[in-house]
């Protein structure tokens, strides 16, 4: 058992508000919250925010099947360094997480890692979109969210049945919205840049048609629908309308969709290839505005590791996806709170980095606290993770994160703790750094360094 820990000098921020307090962690729980507390191990947090550990609704850990890209252990370490104490592992592994056996394996691998690993189950067998996966046997293992992420369930009738069945299990279905008939053979957003580059693009409507359908099916069945990685202005508007109509829908957005535009693809660097694709500047601003007004509930990374050799394939052949776990918090603070171009370092403007980073954001801004809400307790609620997302009170699970909100740093192209290095943000200067992460009462990150 680890020594008791005291986190000293932080401003404690959770869903109930913000106050100055020290926090003592003991036996995996928060043992005390108050002024001038003591414990054998002291973590200095002066000038920092102490928040409930971040929760990622959308992580690709690649194990089993693509261990050369990532493992549960390396992905969990990247997560801890990014301030996460829980991740939801996506089911597009090999084999897919479409049965209790595979779910059990992933959960087992997660138990010894430095971050809580939860599993999302597949909606259909093999994620093939033809036959419902055994959701009940996976739900019995604690799976609360199901998705065929990587592709959407194309068949309208099957999706209707899936919603109906899910309602009976009180689980949530999450959709990767992409109508295959409109997106097959494409590798980026359809628009001015795809025209110029001679690359096949998919229109925003490929996503929006499925968002529209799933809203209709949620209305029909009364089941909960969660929308993964929304990327277009039209999607945000439809989800907003569905919420206004009282439908049980939630949504997430990924950091790249509020930070980078399709202009990033100009150099044919496949690190900028992702599904859904990087969109127009207007879409990027709409996603940021959707996060600010609460239409989009959560920031989720869609952390998707790929080996260098795969990302060096021709752009149309390279696999989609980019890393996110170690960058999401800083990108959110930089873009959504400060509204600044994420690529310009005021100290060294000449070294600023990424062509195609979205311009200064002039829409509604968020506060640091609102950003943390969308990174922590909102996603924890969507995924039904009771031990995460706070509040930070005596007796609650000690899943915590200490953030220095003022520290500026430059993202490098090394990929951090991930086994892969497909980082599209290299060279960007951002604000906000994770200082300490405490998972299940253990200090797994101290002063920005992973402890194991």
């Amino acid at each position: 058992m680890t020594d008791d820990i005291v986190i000293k000098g932080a401003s404690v921020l959770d869903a109930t508000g913000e106050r100055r307090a020290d926090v003592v962690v003991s036996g995996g729980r928060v043992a005390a919250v108050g002024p001038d507390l003591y414990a054998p191990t002291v973590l200095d947090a002066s000038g920092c925010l102490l928040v409930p550990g971040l929760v990622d609704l959308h992580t690709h850990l690649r194990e089993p099947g693509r261990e050369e890209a990532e493992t549960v252990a390396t992905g969990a370490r990247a997560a801890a360094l990014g301030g996460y104490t829980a991740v939801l592992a996506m089911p597009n592994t090999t084999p897919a997480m479409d049965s209790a056996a595979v779910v059990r394996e992933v959960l087992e691998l997660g138990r010894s890692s430095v971050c809580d690993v939860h599993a999302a189950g597949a909606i259909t067998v093999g994620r093939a979109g033809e036959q419902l996966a055994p959701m009940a046997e996976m739900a019995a293992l604690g799976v609360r969210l199901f998705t065929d992420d990587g592709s959407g369930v194309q068949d309208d009738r099957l999706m209707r049945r899936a919603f109906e069945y899910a309602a009976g299990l009180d689980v949530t279905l999450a959709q990767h919205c992409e109508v295959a008939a409109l997106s097959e053979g494409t590798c980026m957003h359809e628009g001015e840049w795809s025209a110029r580059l001679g690359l096949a693009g998919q229109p925003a409507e490929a996503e929006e048609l499925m968002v529209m359908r799933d809203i209709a099916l949620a209305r029909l069945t009364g089941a909960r629908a969660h929308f993964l990685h929304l990327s277009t202005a039209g999607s945000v508007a439809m989800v907003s309308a569905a919420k206004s109509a009282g439908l049980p829908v939630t949504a997430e957005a990924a950091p790249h969709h509020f930070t980078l535009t399709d202009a990033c693809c100009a150099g044919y660097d496949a690190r900028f290839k992702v599904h859904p694709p990087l969109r127009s500047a207007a879409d990027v601003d709409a996603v940021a505005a959707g996060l600010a007004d609460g239409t989009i509930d959560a920031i989720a990374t869609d952390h998707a590791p790929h080996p260098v050799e795969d990302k060096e394939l021709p752009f149309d052949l390279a696999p989609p996806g980019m890393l996110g776990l170690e960058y999401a918090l800083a990108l959110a603070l930089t873009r959504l709170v400060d509204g600044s171009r994420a690529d310009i370092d005021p100290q060294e403007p000449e070294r600023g980095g990424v062509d195609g980073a979205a311009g200064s954001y002039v829409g509604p801004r968020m506060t640091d606290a609102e950003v943390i809400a969308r990174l922590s307790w909102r996603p924890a609620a969507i995924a039904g993770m009771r031990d995460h997302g706070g509040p930070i009170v005596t007796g609650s699970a000690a899943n915590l994160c200490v953030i220095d909100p003022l520290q500026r740093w430059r993202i490098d192209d090394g990929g951090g703790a991930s086994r892969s290095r497909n980082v599209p943000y290299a060279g960007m200067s951002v604000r906000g750094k994770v200082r300490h992460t405490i998972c299940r009462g253990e200090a797994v990150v101290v002063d920005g360094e992973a402890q194991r």
Partner: protein
Amino acid sequence: MTTGTWARRHLLSMAELTRADIEEILDVTDTMVEVSTRSIPKVAALRGRTVVSLFYEDSTRTRLSFDTAAKRLSADTMSFAVSSSSVNKGESVRDTIETIEAMGIDAVVVRHRSAGVPAQIASWTDAVVVNAGDGWHQHPTQALLDSYTIRRHRGSLDGMHIGIVGDVKHSRVARSDIEAFTALGAMVTIVAPPTLLPPTLRPWDVTVSHDLDDVIATLDVCYLLRMQRERMTEALVPSMREYTACFGLTPERADRLPADALIMHPGPMNRGVEIAGEVVDRPGVVVTEQVANGVAVRMAVLFLLLGPGRAALPDGGEIA
């Protein structure tokens, strides 16, 4: 003489060339045409230099044209064809280029079915990279030889009305030609059904027509693109018959072209589809001239990228 802004490291896209850059290449092409008419059409300009053609997509004509161009400049040439290479064993483009580079090469001429591969290769090698066609993206030497051919006949492209007819959406020739022709002062009209257009034409200064009959009488150049049969299965056109009826250069339409209009095609032609067999033999058709000029243009490009530079040419542009 004006000089442009082209860094002359590589030739990847027409978009990187200014009008002055293009005109410089076309001026040097004049010299290379002269070389090509000599009894021994060969000069020593690139002696000791090695040019590799790296073709991941079949194109005998373009490969031979570059090969001929390099040889007329006395460069050593190597050819790396996909079927006879390690690509079939799963070697990455990067490993291939690094292997070839280790043999000591100066330039690599790249053709690939994926857009952007020449740009990727340029980021991995110190050798000069010449794009010989990448996906739907660019085929810059085609645009240069097309521009040169028009200039030879009409003196200049300034104010010319050029119609580019057909499948612009999937055409690297069209993307390159649009950029070259407009940079040189021509007015370009794209003539195609909406299904064969890129999602937007905003990047380019062109006008669009869906009716060839509407514009044919005003064209100085009628540039026909190759129509591929698989476009029908993609529901882009209902049938070849309907395409030809609406967008083919039939004898009747050819009759309505101005008398001095040029009829151009990048080859290979589908006789009876985008151009009627009978029209191919008319005087305005300059398709074989395009091919001949292709060698001279490619000599000019290789010379400017690899040679001692234009400044080394004596007055009058004579080279030995």
